[in-house]
């Protein structure tokens, strides 16, 4: 029991309550300040609790806090319990830490909104943080699911924040509907687990599964985990449900950074990590997870190469990186997946906030063909953006290098050479498109060469901002609140990887060791010491094995991925700085491929034709015109018509003739008397 735990999600929730009820009457400094303050306090509490957690022996690193009994039905009971273990500790620090920075950044970014809109924005952001914390703290599937649905709701509200713009409202709706599909599968997976194990506690399920041998074929357990994974593809934007994430860029940029890069979209990865024991027992599902992850990483990477909207490039990059995380999960390298999740949160948030600063400086311009040469106007943004890009590309000694390397290494060692090849190719693409993004945005000359038709997006979002026209002359760099967040995140992008330095570089992968207990079945208190000894022995054995053959391999692979990162950046430098005409030439000579990529493999169009239109047609012709108009309205109108027709006949009885009425009285009286007399 720890009474501080519930405060972590409750503080942002309190911020939501205040801002949503009184926000209209509060000045921006108070509503924004309060929202940021609760996040910072929440971060401090999390940090304190994680420090306490670290004092415990590795096997005992679990803190729980039960709030109340939620469901009691016969034998079955379910408590609302929050749980901090090494895995949720990492997530807590990412969410509250990066969340705080993004709240602070937002106070400057959203400053042009009117007071009530400003407060509405922060109330949603606080509510999101509260739900996200419930998601990672929940110790059972239903509690996790409450957070899971809550963040989906907040994502919808924040994508459609500028709901007067049709594209934003549509994007919010798309995100919500696509997520519903995944959520449905997630629920089914939960039901399947309950049917099999009779408990919904994550650790309870893990303990029961651990006693079973891994499932040989594709059985009920594999089906349950596959359904959970489909839920994860919805939330974490994987094939086939990734289509909502690029559209989600219609929301304010800090939202893209917080929800659609650092936290919410990683919920699926977290969920698989949380159920590592369960997933390890279903090798078939894990294979599917790995293949889907690798395919998504490659596909999104190729699309990212040709997109022209700065945020969309980053969005596809996010999808691609999430694919790599799922690849790691799928090959059983849960620690590596979570490591990449954690470093990715830093540099991707940094990049999104940097892109926000660029968009802010250019008054809503998002098309990189209209940028260029911003380096000298936006030095802070430029340098932080470059650091974030290098970290993402996997340049040695930055955060992304350690995590991506670990991830690819584990894939290779796991015997998945083909998947490793795909992952490496996706990394190469990452380096190229990030190089392209940096060079097109910040280097060269200021340009305005985007076709007029492509201008449609971007302007509306900031059109409402009250910028003066004279601002167009020289873009101004990020204001202090934004610069602070950028610098801290850039520092994180450099340093975050050093908690997981691999053995190949003389480290011990502390993060991997820290997370390990979370991926193992929970042990009984009495067995702790024994298990600890056994594990230490196993670890020592593994380390020895590691020493023997793998360090050489690890170093080789590290060299390969460093070469890939630097090579990719050089290619980008050559194409978009040295010989800019090459880009155009390539686009022309590979016109069909370029067009295919530019149109995102026509996936939206395919879904539109195969899913959206049939559903709409069935809804319109079958459910609306058939069931609603035909059956339901038909029944109601039918009753009215019958009554109407009957009345048309019966009204003839009201002749107006007094004698006819008197006659009917008389006959009636005679009949009644006759009945009583003759019965």
């Amino acid at each position, binding site marked *: 029991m720890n009474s501080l735990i519930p405060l972590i999600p409750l503080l942002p929730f309190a911020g939501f309550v205040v801002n949503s009820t009184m926000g209209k009457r509060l000045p921006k400094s108070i509503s924004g300040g309060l929202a940021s303050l609760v996040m910072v306090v929440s971060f401090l509490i999390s940090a304190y609790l994680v420090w306490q957690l670290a004092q415990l022996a590795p096997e005992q690193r679990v803190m729980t806090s039960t709030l109340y009994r939620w469901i009691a039905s016969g034998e079955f009971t379910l408590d609302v319990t929050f749980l901090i273990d090494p895995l949720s500790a990492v997530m807590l620090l990412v969410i509250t830490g990066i969340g705080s920075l993004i709240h602070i950044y937002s106070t400057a970014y959203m400053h042009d909104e009117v007071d009530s809109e400003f407060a509405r924005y922060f109330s949603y952001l606080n509510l999101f943080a509260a739900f996200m914390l419930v998601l990672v703290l929940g110790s059972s599937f239903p509690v996790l699911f409450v957070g899971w649905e809550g963040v989906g709701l907040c994502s919808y509200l924040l994508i459609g924040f500028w709901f007067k713009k049709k594209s934003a409202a549509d994007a919010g709706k798309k995100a919500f509907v696509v997520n519903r599909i995944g959520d449905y599968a997630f629920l089914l997976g939960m039901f399947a687990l309950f049917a099999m194990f009779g408990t919904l506690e994550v650790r309870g399920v893990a303990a029961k599964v651990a006693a079973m041998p891994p499932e040989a074929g594709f059985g009920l357990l594999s089906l349950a985990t596959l359904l959970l994974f489909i839920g994860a593809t919805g939330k974490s934007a994987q094939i086939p449900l990734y289509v909502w994430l690029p559209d989600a860029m219609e929301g304010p940029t800090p939202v893209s950074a917080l929800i659609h890069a650092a936290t919410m979209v990683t919920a699926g990865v977290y969920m698989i990590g949380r159920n590592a024991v369960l997933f390890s027992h279903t090798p078939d599902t894990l294979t599917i997870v790995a293949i889907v992850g690798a395919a998504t990483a490659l596909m999104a990477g190729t699309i990212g190469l040709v997109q022209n909207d700065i945020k969309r490039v980053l969005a596809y990059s996010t999808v691609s990186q999430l694919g790599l995380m799922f690849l790691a999960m799928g090959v059983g390298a849960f620690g590596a997946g979570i490591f990449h999740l954690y470093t990715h949160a830093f540099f991707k948030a940094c990049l999104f906030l940097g892109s926000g600063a660029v968009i802010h400086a250019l008054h809503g311009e998002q098309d990189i063909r209209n940028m260029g040469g911003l380096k000298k106007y936006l030095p802070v943004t430029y340098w932080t953006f470059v650091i974030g890009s290098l970290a993402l590309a996997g340049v040695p000694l930055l955060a992304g290098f350690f995590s991506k390397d670990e991830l690819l290494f584990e894939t290779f060692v796991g015997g998945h050479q083909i998947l490793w090849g795909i992952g490496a190719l996706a990394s190469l693409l990452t380096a190229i498109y990030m190089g392209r993004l940096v060079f097109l945005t910040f280097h060269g000359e200021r340009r305005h060469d985007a076709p007029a038709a492509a201008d449609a997006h971007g302007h509306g979002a900031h059109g409402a901002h009250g910028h003066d026209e004279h601002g167009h002359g020289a873009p101004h760099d990020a204001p202090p609140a934004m610069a602070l967040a950028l610098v801290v995140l850039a520092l994180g992008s450099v340093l975050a990887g050093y908690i997981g330095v691999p053995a190949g570089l003389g480290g011990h992968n502390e993060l991997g060791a820290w997370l390990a207990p979370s991926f193992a079945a929970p042990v009984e208190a009495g067995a702790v010491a024994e298990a600890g000894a056994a594990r230490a022995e196993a670890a020592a054995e593994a380390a020895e094995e590691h020493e023997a053959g793998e360090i050489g391999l690890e170093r080789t692979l590290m060299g390969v991925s460093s070469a890939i990162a630097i090579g990719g950046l050089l290619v980008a430098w050559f194409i978009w700085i040295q010989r800019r005409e090459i880009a155009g030439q390539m686009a022309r000579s590979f016109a069909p491929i370029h067009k295919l990529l530019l149109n995102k493999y026509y996936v939206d169009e395919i879904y539109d034709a195969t899913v959206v239109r049939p559903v709409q047609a069935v809804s319109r012709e079958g459910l609306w015109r058939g069931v609603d108009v035909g059956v339901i309205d038909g029944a109601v109108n039918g009753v009215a018509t019958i009554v109407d027709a009957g009345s048309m006949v019966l009204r*003839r009885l*009201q*002749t*107006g*003739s*007094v*004698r006819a009425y008197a*006659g009917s009285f*008389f006959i009636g009286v005679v009949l009644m008397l006759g009945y009583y007399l003759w019965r």
Partner: protein
Amino acid sequence: MIPLSHYLVVSALLFAIGSAGVFLRKNLITILLSVEIMLNAVNLSFVAFGRFNGTVDGQIITFFVMTVAAAEAAVGLALVIALFRGRESLNPDAFTSLKW
């Protein structure tokens, strides 16, 4: 002594004559008179029953009926006069606009 059944037969005959008048005559005043005949047929049977049972209840009820009949006649005649002013007719079939 005349038995009860004789009174009742006369009463039934009077009632039948009255109701026939109500249904068949085409003059509102005649219809009102026929209603009075029906009331008096009933009065006759009340009084006969009272005598037969040796109580005064029948006579008391008859007094009430006569009082109400007087009031009814006054109201009825007033209505007939009002109707005649409107339509220049006393035929009940002329007053059928309250229909459908």
